[in-house]
């Protein structure tokens, strides 16, 4: 800390200048981890780039019409993405409709009603649902849910709602509705865990204010807690949607796998991910590979939009810590 002048230069400059430790190991270490960090961003870009590159051939042949054509015929080498895009959006939407009340109900129960000793174990159990591999959900769906749909749910729906025409056709137990139900089971833990975290983060003063005005438990939840954690809940819902959109194995094993547009909720269908799983390795040639990967690009763009949107919401809410459920 010696200085020739009465007014010394700022402290850090002098300190660094006299420091005996070599600085190059620090710089080398930084460069190394920088390379690895860049590789993560490169991976994200590479995924999009590879899918774009492979889609070129299909795009040249079918153009934008690819997205709205409902013909998928490998024998004639004519490909259109519509059946799979519709299947993906339809199954995800129905799954979300089923999962939303279940997730919110369980999140509210776990944050406001359940006794404290029960919250930990029940919360862990809900999160364990997210850890089960999707092929096991598919297996369970195939042997437990499909027979149950065939024997009980589908006949009841055909009896009561048959007039709508949405449940026509042969009842095999497989189909769009069965896939949606399994998807709902799979996305509940995602939505529920994030909703629970954001509900639990509501400040006590917020609840106490409502309670002191004479609100009941439900009114406190509705007036003081849900509005406060809305953006977190919405983020959780969108993350759940993202999971439903890309889910493969569970859907693959129960949806019935048809290349046609789904005409009935109990009829067979396909999603983009089941198309990739079914036909990529058993393709009939480069044009089919290209068409399948163009469908993959569509899925990638949908999933990126959903994920970026959801994470911006959850990040804003949680101050950069991200969601807990993965």
């Amino acid at each position, binding site marked *: 800390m010696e200085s020739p002048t009465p007014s010394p230069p700022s402290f850090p400059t002098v300190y660094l200048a006299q420091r005996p430790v070599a600085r190059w190991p620090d710089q080398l270490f930084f460069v190394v981890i920088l390379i*690895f960090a860049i590789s*993560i961003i490169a991976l994200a870009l590479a995924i999009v780039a590879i899918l774009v590159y492979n889609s070129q051939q299909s795009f040249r042949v079918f153009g934008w019409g690819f997205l709205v054509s409902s013909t998928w015929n490998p024998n004639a080498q004519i490909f259109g993405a519509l059946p799979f895009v519709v299947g993906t959006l339809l199954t995800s939407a129905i799954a979300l409709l089923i999962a939303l009340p279940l997730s919110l109900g369980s999140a509210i129960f776990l944050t406001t009603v359940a006794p404290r000793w029960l919250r930990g174990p029940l919360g862990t159990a809900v999160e364990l*649902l997210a850890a089960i591999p999707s092929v096991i959900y598919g297996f*369970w769906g195939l042997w437990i849910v499909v027979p149950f749909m065939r024997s009980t749910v589908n006949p009841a729906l055909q009896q009561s709602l048959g007039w709508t025409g949405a449940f026509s056709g042969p009842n095999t137990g497989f189909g769009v509705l069965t896939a949606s139900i399994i998807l709902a089971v799979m996305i509940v833990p995602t939505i529920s865990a994030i909703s629970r975290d954001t509900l639990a983060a509501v400040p006590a003063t917020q609840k106490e204010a409502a309670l002191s005005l004479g609100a009941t438990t439900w*009114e406190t939840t509705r007036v003081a807690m849900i509005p406060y954690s809305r953006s977190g809940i919405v983020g959780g819902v969108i*993350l759940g949607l993202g999971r439903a*959109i890309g889910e493969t194995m569970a859907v693959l094993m129960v949806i019935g796998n048809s290349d046609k547009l789904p005409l009935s909720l109990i009829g067979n269908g396909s999603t983009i991910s089941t198309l990739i799983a079914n036909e990529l390795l058993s393709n009939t040639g480069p044009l089919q590979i290209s068409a399948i990967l163009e469908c993959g690009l569509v899925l990638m763009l949908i999933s990126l939009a959903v*994920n970026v949107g959801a994470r911006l919401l959850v990040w804003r809410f949680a101050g950069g810590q991200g969601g807990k459920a993965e």
Partner: protein
Amino acid sequence: MKFDRFARRKLLSHTITVLAGLTVVAVLYPLVDIVYVAFVHGGGVLFQATFLTARNPTPCSVVSCASVGIAPDIEGTAAMVGLAALISVPIGVLAAILASEYRTGGFGRAVSFTADVLSGVPSILMGAFVYGYLVIENPALVETAISGGLALSAIMIPIVTRTTEEALRTVPNSMREAAIALGISKWKMTLRIVLVSALPGVVTGVLLAIMRATGEAAPLIVTVGFSNLPFDSLSAYNRPAGSLPVLIYNFALSPYSNWLDLAWGAVLFLLIAILIVNVLSRYVIHRMTVKMSGGS
């Protein structure tokens, strides 16, 4: 009149409470049922002496049903997940160090945001990506265990990054300051003090990523395919390989009862492994968070 209204409000509140309780039952029912069904159908198979060591059987109609086993699939899964871990752990851990320990003017934040978004990319697309890359660059590697390992590593990288970053953030700043005050250089401080303190959390994150990759079937059926051949040498990386999740998928609708039994046994085996690792890792993370926040 006033009393009536209050009674009605209380009734509504209680009704919703009960309904919310019922949703918890509905949500947890599948978990209970999956475990129950897996034990009922898979228990008898899994606890046979030869199940984990025997090779895939020929169908019962051809030979006797004696020795059923999933050894090639355990080997294949271990080989591909091992390759994926070798690739993804260094990338994930080092990238997380940059995101958590260095001021990079938003770049670190961009890295962890990218990792977060990548962890939401459907796993089938990781398979499609690796397939699409190899089909252009090196078609000989399509349908090999190497391509499966690559696809699994793309799934593991974002998970390892995120969990490592979270573990590093639980290390109190006072430890970093103490280390720097003693004159240690930053890279040594990061590796020997911060990373070592966060090690239980990092290891847990790696384990969770490994279990996630172990259960993935979708990226494997578009890259590796399936095979009954044993995974007995490094050269086996150059051909299709079996794996537990793909075995479950392939044999799910098998007409041969012993193939179906194999699938049920594999379901139970995977389920037990994954539930145990998850419960244990939750315990470790919980203890670490308590310890760190207590010490700061």
